[in-house]
């Protein structure tokens, strides 16, 4: 008999009341509203576990590490009760041909039903032999397992965009998954790595609603990648007030002013860091004093130094989304920078004056 998530919770002494509370919290944290909580509850009560094949190409394993950091749900419960992680070379007990036999088994037994999660990416140079698995190019394994998958999750910036090994001059010709698998629904969950709860949130959403989350034009779930870090940054009032960190560890840094002038890429980066935050909400890069390096954006390694000021942002416009910005960024860039500089200089002068008055009192 297959144990469902609900049964697991009950057996661990969780009451039905707590379980339903969990469901409504999950619904809320996914941005779905409390009305959908009963559907989450029903799904978790009744479903057997969906097989997941988790492949690793050229990567650094930061996505797997992030995944096991998930606090809600716990990685343990995802793996033991929500899905069936049938192949993941980072965690699985078996190795060699015993491991590879599982691929064959799942491919046949669950044809069209399993989720293919991909961490890292395939290099195409040298016939793909910059990433060899079982003596063969990784790209072959990827294509072979993709053929019978229901959907593909591209974990992290490697699988989504190419990431560090694809940075110029990309010596191995590493390419993102969607460049070699073009006939499967693919969900990109970018970030280096993605936030743990975003990863488990995407999986839970798919298992619960039996559908792929709504994606933006670039293939990312809108619920987590629909807005820029800047739009919801708690330091945003300092940006609007023209209060900036000018040097590391200066007074402004100690007061938590805006890191824009230190190269923060929050204004051009679509991710959930400033709201979901990291490691169960403890912090996120800006909160800990370093600008965002834009790690969930396509080609973020090749956009100049992480300490160069971004020059293509608009001063206002939280309502903009990735699709709109993608289409208009080039056109507005020049004007926006000029406007930004003028507005922030004016505001800064005004606020500084106000500050002095206040401290004088």
């Amino acid at each position, binding site marked *: 008999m297959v144990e469902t998530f609900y049964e697991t919770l009950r057996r661990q002494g969780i009451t039905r009341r707590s379980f339903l509370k969990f469901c409504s919290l999950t619904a809320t944290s996914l941005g779905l509203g409390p009305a959908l909580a009963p559907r989450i509850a029903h799904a978790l009560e009744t479903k057997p576990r969906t097989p997941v094949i988790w492949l690793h190409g050229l990567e650094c394993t930061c996505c797997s590490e992030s995944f096991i950091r998930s606090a809600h749900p716990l990685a343990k419960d995802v793996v033991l009760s929500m899905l069936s992680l049938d192949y993941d070379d980072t965690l699985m007990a078996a190795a*060699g041909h015993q491991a590879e036999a599982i691929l064959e088994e799942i491919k046949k037994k669950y044809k069209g039903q399993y989720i293919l999660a991909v961490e890292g990416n395939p290099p195409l140079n040298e016939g793909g032999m910059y990433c060899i698995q079982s003596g063969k190019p990784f790209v072959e394994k990827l294509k072979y397992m993709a053929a019978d998958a229901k959907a593909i999750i591209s974990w992290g910036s490697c699988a989504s965009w190419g990431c560090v090994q694809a940075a110029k001059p990309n010596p191995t010709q590493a390419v993102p998954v969607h460049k070699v698998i073009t006939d499967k629904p693919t969900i990109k969950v970018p970030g280096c790595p993605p936030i743990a709860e975003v990863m488990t949130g995407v999986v839970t959403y798919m298992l619960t609603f039996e559908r792929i989350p709504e994606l933006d034009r670039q293939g990312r779930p809108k619920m987590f990648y629909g807005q820029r870090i800047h739009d919801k940054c708690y330091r945003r009032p300092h940006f609007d007030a023209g209060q900036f960190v000018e040097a590391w560890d200066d007074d402004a840094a100690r007061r938590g002013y805006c890191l824009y002038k230190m190269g923060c890429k929050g204004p051009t980066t679509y991710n959930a860091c400033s709201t979901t935050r990291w490691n169960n909400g403890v912090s996120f890069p800006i909160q800990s004093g370093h600008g965002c390096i834009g790690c969930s954006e396509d080609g973020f390694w090749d956009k100049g130094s992480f300490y160069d000021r971004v020059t293509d942002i608009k001063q206002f416009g939280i309502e903009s989304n990735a699709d709109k910005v993608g289409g208009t960024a080039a056109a507005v860039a020049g004007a926006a920078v000029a406007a930004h500089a003028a507005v922030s200089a004016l505001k800064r002068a005004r606020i500084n004056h106000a500050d002095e008055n206040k401290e004088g009192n």
Partner: protein
Amino acid sequence: MGVYETQGFKLDNSGKRVVVDPVCRIEGHLRVEVNLDADNVIRNAVSTGTMWRGLEVILKGRDPRDAWAFTERICGVCTGTHALTSVRAVEDALDIKIPENANSIRNMMQLCLQVHDHLVHFYHLHALDWVDVISALKADPKRTSELAQSISSWPLSSPGYFRDLQNRLKKFVESGQLGPFANGYWGNPAYKLPAEANLMAVAHYLEALDFQKEIVKIHTVFGGKNPHPNWLVGGVPCAINLNDTGAVGAINIERLNLVKSIIDQSIEFTEKVYIPDLLAIASFYKGWLHGGGLSSKSVLSYGDIPDRANDHSAKNLLLPRGAIINGDLTKVHEVDLRDPEQIQEFVVHSWYKYADESKGLHPFDGVTEANYKPEGKNFKGTRTKIERLDEEAKYSWIKAPRWRGHAMEVGPLARYIIGYVQKTPEFKEPVDAVLKHLDVPLTALFSTLGRTAARGLECQWAAHKMRYFYDKLIANIKAGDSSTANVEKWEPSRWPKEAKGVGFTEAPRGALAHWIRIKDTKIDNYQCVVPTTWNGSPRDGKGQIGAFEASLLNTPMAKADEPLEILRTIHSFDPCLACSTHVMSPDGQEMAVVKVR
């Protein structure tokens, strides 16, 4: 080759060839081939790094202040250690001094990684080599409880707790969907634990999975996220503000309290769960002392954890520094990372090309031109379908680093052996205590089990040292210093036209160093020699084998078709293949345009 001797080992590749590819439960991609004699004893071992990413060529021409972020992505498991090594290399090149607070915070982050990495390695990457999960189903929960309570005061130890866990496991197994436990080597006679010890270990596998996510919050506080926290050339990016307006946006007393509570929990978990489990498991395996390899002959450590800021001399480093060669435990040699005669990399058996492959190159002058060439008279397969590699030809994406010509083992065991030989009490005493507890001689240290035990002891050491640097940070702030960054040389206009430097750390897996050359404010050359390059090294021109290969020799396998013993020993090094196989110099750039498909 047939039969030959090297480093005191006899190699014979005439017997049955067994291939393990992929070796799972590691970071990255590794292949191992061994030859077994008629009694299923390993008589030849070949380890092959099977991935390569080319990060150094990517670094060329970039801003040296950005290099930490690129190199941090070499590895997401030992996250942060490459970044720390990188900022140290840049600071060395540009002669930048960091504030004391930055040193304490960096040390806490590095030690936090040691604690996290060792714990996750033991429970999630290594435990299944010792622990039979399916056997846990047969355990008596009451006796499991008695066992747990006899070795530790850890509170989660009641019969009911273990019964619930066993029921959960039972239902999981009965579901037929075994997930990560599918096709494991359950029931293999090389598993020695009684059912009750297996059940206890499975419980702690799950508890450790829950707990590890707490440890890394120290990275999150100071670096904003984990994996891959943020670092800064010249200090740390997090400012300290305890009293003034805006303190809530900086390191304040609430943040410091969070760090302190995690340190306390880490010490408790390590001492009440990890160490007792380690000793309990070891007590059932102390008759299985294979896997020593190079550890009794040649070990290397660069040292790490500078007590005071900006002093990287051996006497100021809390982790030991030095080299032992030829099994001479009476002498620890000085190590100099700048000396062109000491560290050199060879490529005779690696898929790279040198103008003169009979010579090794020091990393400051390193060259790496990729040269993928599976070949040799014993090679079987095609270019894109390898069936058997030939260790007499080129066979790995890993180079062969040597210290004064010697293949070396690096990692926790190397550090503990050097610390032991130097008679440093904080390394010697715990080792002696473990040996006494298990009633085994000092020679037992040179084994797979010794490697695994050293890692556990180091985890405990690191947890306590976090507390030391936390206290140091508080004392320094109390004394009126809240500085975290030195920005005197932040602007590239203040840099010399040319500079070169080396940065080093002791990563969880062993000695790690980056060599950088800066020219006209950009990276001119960047080289990393990482722990798994040392341990996973292929043969060199003299036929000397690396640490992985040496460790597998003479190990009997209970079943030739179940590579349990191979995994156990290879895992004891905690291999990190993404680390070891990225190395490439600017000269390799040309191949990028040659073979684009």
